[in-house]
């Protein structure tokens, strides 16, 4: 029942966002002076810009108000925060912020050096391999439930 109400709420919000976008695009197309093709281009561009902003803002507001729960963002399956997730989050934010700064300064899509790609590759691979090790260990543990596989003193 609560899920249904939540779904209706999101649908209403989505329709309001689309309506606002169309209204602004229509206003630009009708009242802004200029060539018809330019007006059409401006209407579509502003419309998309506003729609993307509204989508992003709704997601942001939902995260801030805990409607979208991100409390387990860094959580491992076995409990406790995960180093591999933490470093992936840090590098994603750093590269993302750098990208915005560089685009804002140059007004063009920047060249991405190979060692930046390597940095992201290392970070993402670490996360992937870490998940693989965890899955393998968990799998092995369920098979060998006799408990004779412990190696005390070695930590991850």
């Amino acid at each position, binding site marked *: 029942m609560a899920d249904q109400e939540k779904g209706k709420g999101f649908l209403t919000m989505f329709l309001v966002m689309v309506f606002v976008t169309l209204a602004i695009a229509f206003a630009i197309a009708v009242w802004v002076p200029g060539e018809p093709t330019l007006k059409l281009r401006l209407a579509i*561009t502003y419309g998309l*810009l506003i729609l*993307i*902003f509204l989508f*992003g*803002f709704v997601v*942001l507001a939902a*995260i801030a108000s*805990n409607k979208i729960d*991100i*409390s387990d*963002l*860094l959580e*491992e399956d*076995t*409990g*406790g*925060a*995960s*180093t*591999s997730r*933490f*470093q992936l*989050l840090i*590098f994603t*934010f*750093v590269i993302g*912020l*750098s990208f*915005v*700064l*560089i685009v*804002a*300064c*140059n*007004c063009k899509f*920047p*060249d991405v*050096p190979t*060692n*930046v790609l*390597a*940095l992201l590759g290392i970070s993402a*691979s670490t996360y992937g*391999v870490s998940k693989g*090790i*965890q899955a*393998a*260990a968990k799998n092995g*543990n369920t098979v*060998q*439930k006799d*408990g004779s*596989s*412990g*190696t*005390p003193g*070695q*930590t*991850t």
Partner: protein
Amino acid sequence: MRFLVAAAYWQTVILLGGFFAVVLWKLFTGGISLNGLLDGDVRDPNSADGFSSEASAGRAQSIILTLFVALWYLLQVIHNPKEFPRLPNTMVGVLAGSQVLYLGGKARAMLSGQLRNLFK
């Protein structure tokens, strides 16, 4: 057209900055838990799920190096925001080595008992 560019710029800044701020806020207020960030899992036959947690040097060095490289990179971008800064190959190598060390330690601690049993 200039207004469109400015609007797109501020939109990105508000959304990305907002996501960054919300995640950072939740990290600092405990909304996203960092408990056990430096604790590694170790195979433990006496535990209910087969694993227990202990402080891990591998995780500590990985986090320290990650924060160092991330901060260095961010400072370089702030200093010269015209292009992506070139990372020295040594730094990429050291970071890769650090992650391999962390993953090797993790694999050893979580899988070595399993492998040993395989050869019994």
